[in-house]
């Protein structure tokens, strides 16, 4: 689709806003609808649109395979890591209240943000990996 000028220009305009919206959904999931899962999917969509228009090669240059692989693992590690951190702080596994001994609700809020971030990173990484792996097979 590289030869369509309008599609290329509009895609370049859209991608930053798609990524920004993903970050909004990620960080605002505790107040409005949304959360890590939806944010991860939207974040991946930004890169997928780019890959459809500009090709897999250029997308891999922005998002190299080793970065993708790290993302896939990092989210789960972050999620489980929060669980171990709460245990180290003297609470139960994933009992975020232990983060703040004086105000458990504050600790809960922090824990939920971190955990949702973990979900978002893994979902974005996996969705991108699946799409790029399929698209890459098509290329050759």
């Amino acid at each position, binding site marked *: 689709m590289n030869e369509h000028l309008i599609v290329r220009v509009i895609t370049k305009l859209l991608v930053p806003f798609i990524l920004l919206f993903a970050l909004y959904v990620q960080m605002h999931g505790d107040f409005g609808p949304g959360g890590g899962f939806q944010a991860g999917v939207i974040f991946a969509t930004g890169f997928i649109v780019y890959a459809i228009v500009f090709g897999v090669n250029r997308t891999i240059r922005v998002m190299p395979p080793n970065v993708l692989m790290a993302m896939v*693992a990092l989210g789960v590690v972050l999620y489980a890591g929060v669980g171990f951190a709460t245990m180290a702080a003297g609470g139960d596994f994933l009992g975020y209240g232990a983060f703040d001994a004086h105000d*458990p609700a504050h600790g809960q809020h922090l*824990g*939920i943000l971190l955990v949702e971030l973990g979900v978002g990173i893994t979902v974005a990484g996996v969705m991108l990996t699946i799409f790029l792996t399929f698209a890459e097979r*098509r290329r050759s």
Partner: protein
Amino acid sequence: MERLHLVLPVVLLIALALAILRLRNLLAIAILSGVYSLVMALIFTILDAVDVAFTEAAVGAGITLTLMLAALSLTTRYEARKAPEMIRRSVALVVACTIAIALGYAMFSLPNLGDATAQIHEHVAPRYIAMAQADTGVPNIVTAVLASYRGYDTLGETTVIFTAGIAVMALLWRWRTERS
């Protein structure tokens, strides 16, 4: 009568399902299932389940459709047409009718849509609704339930996604070998 605004989307769903059954063009089927997900998202919005609607629209209509199209680009556009076998078809008909009757029968023991006194709404839900804000400081109860009260489940779900990613990498990944 107050469910009248659900009639149109549900009729649309049935029409879409029938169209998907009849079609042989896989591209059209993938796109129609995306439309099906969008109508489902509409129904969830009407039922005030915005978080579920958001997920359905983003995952069902957005990413699933894209992944389907990516998978379709690796295979053919049309489903192969096989000559119908009478015995197989009649067995399938009997099985389908039995399941339909069983599901129809089971439907009568379901609670009414939006019934506040249904069993499922009287277990832990009242506690979540009363205490979520004080417990977690998060105004969106869905997020509080998902990430905190049911944190183990969500960790499991994330691990499932992780496993799917690893599986696709293990089976299809070949970026590394190509470079060397």
